[in-house]
C-alpha cells in the first residue's frame, strides 16, 4: 500500500471542499490517515461521538435503534413494546437477524412487532393509561412472557409520560419484571446512547437478581454478541469445547434469566465493546468480575483470542485450547488455501457499527485482503484508539462519514469490496463495486468462530469474484467478457 500520507490527506481535503464552511470544518476533524505514531501510541485526535451535521445523509440511526434494535430486542423471552407511534417498531421488525431458539409468539418474542400505535389522542392526553392496559393484554396474549420491556419512541419523552410509574405498578400487578427504557430517538447523537441507556436499564432492573444453583471455576459470560446469523452459537461452541461453561449470553438468543445470573460468572468475555462495555465495568465494580475483549473473526484473531482466554484459567483449559485449535487448524488451512489466492491484494473499505470496523480486519487479512479505509457509524474515542494499531500505515480512518464521502472515497481508492449496510448496498451495485452488508451478514452468516470463517471466506469470494460485475457497461462498448 502507498504510504503517501500527504496524498491521502489531500484526497480527504479535496473531497471535503464540497461542504459549506461550517460543515467542512466539522467533517475534517472526523478523518485521520494512519501512521507509525498512531499505530504505536494508539492515541488519536479523530473526533467521534459528536452530532452528525444536518442534511449530509449520515448513515447513523438513533437511540431507540441502539436499545430496542440492538441490546434489548434479542432477549427472546421478554416482550418488547415499541412505545409510541407505529413506525419505529415496524421498521425494526425482524430485520436484524438476531437468531434465537424457541417458538415465536409462545416462548420467544423476538421477530414480533409489539406497538402501542400512538394516535393523536395519546399525544394529547398521554399514553400511560394505554400502556397499563397493554401490559395486561400482553400477559393475556403471551402468558409465557418472562417480562416486558418498554422501549420509548420520540413522542413519549416529549409529552411527559411517566412510564416508570406505570412499569412499577404493572410489574407488581402482573408479577413479572417490567422494565422502562428511555431510549427516545432524539437522545444522544446516534445508536450509541441507546446502548448505554439499555445497559443502565439492565443494571437497574435485572443485574444480580438471579441465582445460579451451582457455580463453577470455568463459568464465563459472552457479552455483546447478538447472534447475527448464529454468531454467538458459533462462538459459544469453541468456549465450551475448551472446557469453559457459558452461563449467560448477552444478548443474542438471550433470556431474562441470563441477564439476572451473569454476576455469578468468573470472567466476562466481551465481543462488542461499544454496545456493552458499560455492563462489564459495572459487573467489575459491583461484583469484582474481570473482563476481557476478544475477537472471533478469522482464524488468526480467533486463535489469539482463544489462547488469551485460556490464559485466564489453568493448564487444563490451556491444554484443551490447544486441542481445539489443532482440531480446526486443518479446516482453516484448507479454507485459506482455497480462497486466499482468489482474494489476495483485494482492497476493502468498511463502514460499520460497534466492533466490526476493527474486529473484521484480521479476517480479511487472513484472506490476503487489504483494508484501505475503515471507520465507525457511532464509535467513541476508545474504539478509535483500539483501531489504529490494527491498521497499516496510510489507511484512511473516518468517523460518521456521509453517503457522499463514502462514495467519493470508494471511487478514489479504487476498492474491490465495500462493506457497510443495506442503505449503502445498492448504491455500490450501481457503481459496479462488489458489496457485502456487514450488519446482517447480507442474509448469510454466522461469521464468528471457525465455523463462521468458512462462510465469511466463501461469501467474500462469491461477491468479489462474481462474474456479474463484468456485465456492467453498454452493449456497444463490448466491456463484457465471458
Amino acid at each position: 500500500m502507498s504510504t503517501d500520507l500527504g496524498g491521502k490527506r489531500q484526497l480527504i481535503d479535496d473531497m471535503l471542499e464540497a461542504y459549506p464552511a461550517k460543515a467542512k470544518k466539522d467533517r475534517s476533524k472526523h478523518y485521520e490517515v494512519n501512521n507509525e505514531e498512531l499505530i504505536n501510541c494508539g492515541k488519536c485526535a479523530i473526533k467521534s461521538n459528536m452530532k452528525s451535521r444536518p442534511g449530509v445523509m449520515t448513515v447513523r440511526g438513533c437511540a431507540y435503534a441502539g436499545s430496542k434494535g440492538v441490546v434489548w430486542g434479542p432477549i427472546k423471552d421478554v416482550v418488547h413494546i415499541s412505545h409510541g407511534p407505529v413506525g419505529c417498531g415496524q421498521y425494526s421488525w425482524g430485520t436484524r437477524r438476531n437468531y434465537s431458539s424457541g417458538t415465536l409468539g409462545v416462548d420467544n418474542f423476538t421477530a414480533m412487532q409489539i406497538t402501542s400505535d400512538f394516535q393523536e389522542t395519546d399525544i394529547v392526553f398521554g399514553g400511560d393509561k394505554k400502556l397499563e392496559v397493554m401490559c395486561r393484554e400482553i400477559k393475556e396474549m403471551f402468558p409465557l412472557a418472562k417480562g416486558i420491556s418498554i422501549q420509548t419512541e420520540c413522542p413519549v419523552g416529549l409529552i411527559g409520560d411517566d412510564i416508570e410509574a406505570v412499569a412499577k405498578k404493572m410489574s407488581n400487578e402482573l408479577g413479572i419484571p417490567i422494565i422502562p427504557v428511555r431510549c427516545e430517538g432524539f437522545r444522544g447523537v446516534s445508536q450509541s446512547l441507546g446502548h448505554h441507556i439499555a445497559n443502565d436499564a439492565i443494571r437497574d432492573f435485572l443485574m444480580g437478581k438471579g441465582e445460579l444453583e451451582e457455580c463453577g471455576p470455568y463459568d464465563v459470560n459472552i457479552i455483546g454478541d447478538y447472534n447475527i446469523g448464529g454468531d454467538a452459537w458459533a462462538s459459544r461452541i469453541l468456549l465450551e469445547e475448551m472446557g469453559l461453561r457459558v452461563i449467560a449470553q448477552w444478548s443474542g438468543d438471550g433470556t431474562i434469566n441470563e441477564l439476572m445470573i451473569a454476576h455469578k460468572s468468573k470472567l466476562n468475555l466481551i465481543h462488542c465493546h461499544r454496545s456493552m462495555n458499560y455492563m462489564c465495568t459495572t459487573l467489575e465494580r459491583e461484583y469484582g468480575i474481570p473482563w476481557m475483549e476478544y475477537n472471533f473473526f478469522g482464524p488468526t484473531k480467533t486463535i489469539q483470542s482463544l489462547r488469551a482466554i485460556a490464559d485466564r484459567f489453568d493448564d487444563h483449559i490451556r491444554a484443551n485450547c490447544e486441542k481445539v485449535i489443532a482440531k480446526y487448524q486443518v479446516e482453516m488451512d484448507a479454507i485459506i488455501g482455497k480462497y486466499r489466492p482468489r482474494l489476495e491484494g483485494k482492497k476493502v473499505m468498511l463502514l460499520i457499527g460497534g466492533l466490526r470496523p476493527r474486529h473484521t480486519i484480521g479476517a480479511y487479512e487472513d484472506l490476503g485482503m487489504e483494508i484501505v479505509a475503515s471507520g465507525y457509524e457511532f464509535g467513541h474515542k476508545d474504539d478509535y484508539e483500539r483501531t489504529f494499531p490494527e491498521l497499516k500505515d496510510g489507511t484512511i480512518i473516518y468517523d460518521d462519514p456521509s453517503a457522499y464521502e463514502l462514495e467519493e472515497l470508494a471511487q478514489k481508492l479504487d476498492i474491490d469490496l465495500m462493506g457497510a449496510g443495506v442503505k449503502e448496498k445498492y448504491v455500490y451495485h450501481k457503481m459496479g463495486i462488489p458489496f457485502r452488508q456487514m450488519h446482517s451478514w447480507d442474509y448469510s452468516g454466522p461469521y464468528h468462530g471457525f465455523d463462521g470463517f468458512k462462510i465469511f471466506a466463501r461469501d467474500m469470494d462469491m461477491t468479489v469474484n462474481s462474474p456479474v460485475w463484468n456485465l456492467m457497461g453498454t452493449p456497444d462498448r463490448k466491456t463484457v467478457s465471458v
Partner: protein
Amino acid sequence: MRDKLDIVDFNTLFKSETYEQQRERKREFEAPCSPSQVTETLEYSQSQEYKDKNFSRSSLVVNPAKACQPLGAVMAALGFEKTLPFLHGSQGCAAYFRSHLSRHFKEPVPAVSSSMTEDGAVFGGLRNLVDGLENCMALYKPEMIAVSTTCMAEVIGDDLQAFIETARQEGVISRDIPVPYANTPSFSGSHITGYDAMLKSILSFLYNESKVKLSTEEDLTKLNVILGFEPYTGNFAEIKKILSAFGLEYTVLGDHSGNFDSPAAGEYSYYYGGTKLTDVPKAASATGTISLQKYAVKKTIEYIQGEWNQQIVSTYTPIGIGATDRLLQSIADLTGSEIPAELQEERGRVVDALTDSHSYLHGKRVALVGDPDLLLGLIGFCLEVGMEPVHIVCTNGDKEFLQEAEELLASSLYGEEATVHNGHDLWHMRSLLISNPVDLAIGSSHLKYAAKDANVPLIRIGFPIFDRHHMHRYSIIGYQGTLNILSLIVNTVLEQLDQNAPEYGFDLVR
C-alpha cells in the same frame, strides 16, 4: 470452481448434533418454560378462547400491517425529478425509511435528516433545518427538496413554513429551489396518508409558484395519471403501455419508477427519472386526471378537483378484467377516444388464460391483507375468478373503505363468507387463519409468520416484500398485471398439489 470444502449455511450448520447439544446445554441457564408448557400454550393460542381474547384487545397492537406517514412522504418525493426527500426530526427515522424502502425495492433510497437532538426539543429545530438545507444543497445538488416531518418536530410544533422562509432569507437556499413541505406525524394515519400529504404539497407548491401558467394546446389535451403509494415499479410501465396504446399524451404525477428501478451502469447519480417539475403547473390544465388508487391519495384528488377544477377518475388498484375494463372505459370517456384494438386483444388473451386455469382457482378460500386500494383490487379479482375471500384484514382503512369493501363482497356469491376486519393486525389474522382455515393467504412478507403458524401457503402481493426478489418489477394492474397475478396464484396452487400429492396423484399434466 467446484466447492469441495463442504461449507454449509446457517440452516444446516445449526441443525447438526453438535449445535443441538449446545442448545440443550444452554437451556440450563435460560430458566426456560418446560416443553409441555410450550405445547399447552401453543395449543391455547390456537383455541377459540384465545381468539376471543385476541379480538377483545383494546390497546395492544401486534404485528400491524402498516407503516408511518413520513415513509410515504419519502416515496412521494422520489416521484419527482431531482428531488431530495428531507426529513425534519430525529435522524433515526430517515435511516429507517431508507432501509425499509431499500429492502423492498433493492434500490438505493436517498434521503436526508435534519438530525435533531435533545437541544432541538428545547429550542426547536430551526438551526437544524437551515443548516440541513444548506448542506444537502451543497452535497447532493437537488432541484427540489421535499420536506416532511417526523414525530419529534410534530410534537414540539416546529413551524416549517417560517423555518424554510428563514433559510431563504439567510440565503442558504435560493428562491429558485422549490421546497414544498408536508406535516406527516406518525401518530395519525399511515404511510398512505403521508404519501398523500407530500404529493399534494408538491403539486400545490409547484402550481402556486409558477408565475406564468403556460398552457399550450398540447397541455389541454393531456391526461394526468396518479399511481399513489405504489410498491410496484412494473405498474408504471403497465399504465404507460396502456396510455401509449390509446395514443394519449400524459403526465404521471409522482413517478418513482425511475428512482426505484435504476440501471447498474457503473456509476451512481442519486436521481433517476421522476415527474418533471415544469410539467406540474402544466398538468393543472390537463383534460382530467386518472388515479389508480383512491384511498391513498384522497387529499390530492380533492385538491385537483377543487383547485385545478378537473374531471377525476379514481379507482382502487385496477386488478382483474372488470376493473381494467372500467379503467379503459373511463380513459376512453374522459378523452373521447376508442379503446384500442391491441388492448382488446390483450384482454382476450388474459381471459383465455383465466379460463385455462379456472378449475384450480374456483372455490379456493383466501385470506387477504394489504392497504385499502390493493385489497379492493384483490377482492375484485378473487370474485371474478370464483375464488372466495374469507378473512380480510386491513390495518389502515377508513369507514369508507370498509363500506366499499363490504358492498363489493356483497355483489357476488363468492363474497358471501367474507368478513372485513378493518383496523386489525396480523395477530388477529393468525387467529382467523387457525380457527377458520383457508387455502391461500395473500399479503406482504410480514404475513409470513401467521401463514406459517396456520400452515397456509403465502402469496406475496403488496408492501413490503422483503424476502422475495424482483416481484415489484412486474405489474399487477391492467390485463397484463392480471395475468401476472393469475400465474402467481395458480402456480402456487399447482405447487401445493405436487407437494401434497400421494404417489399416484403426482400428475405430469395439470
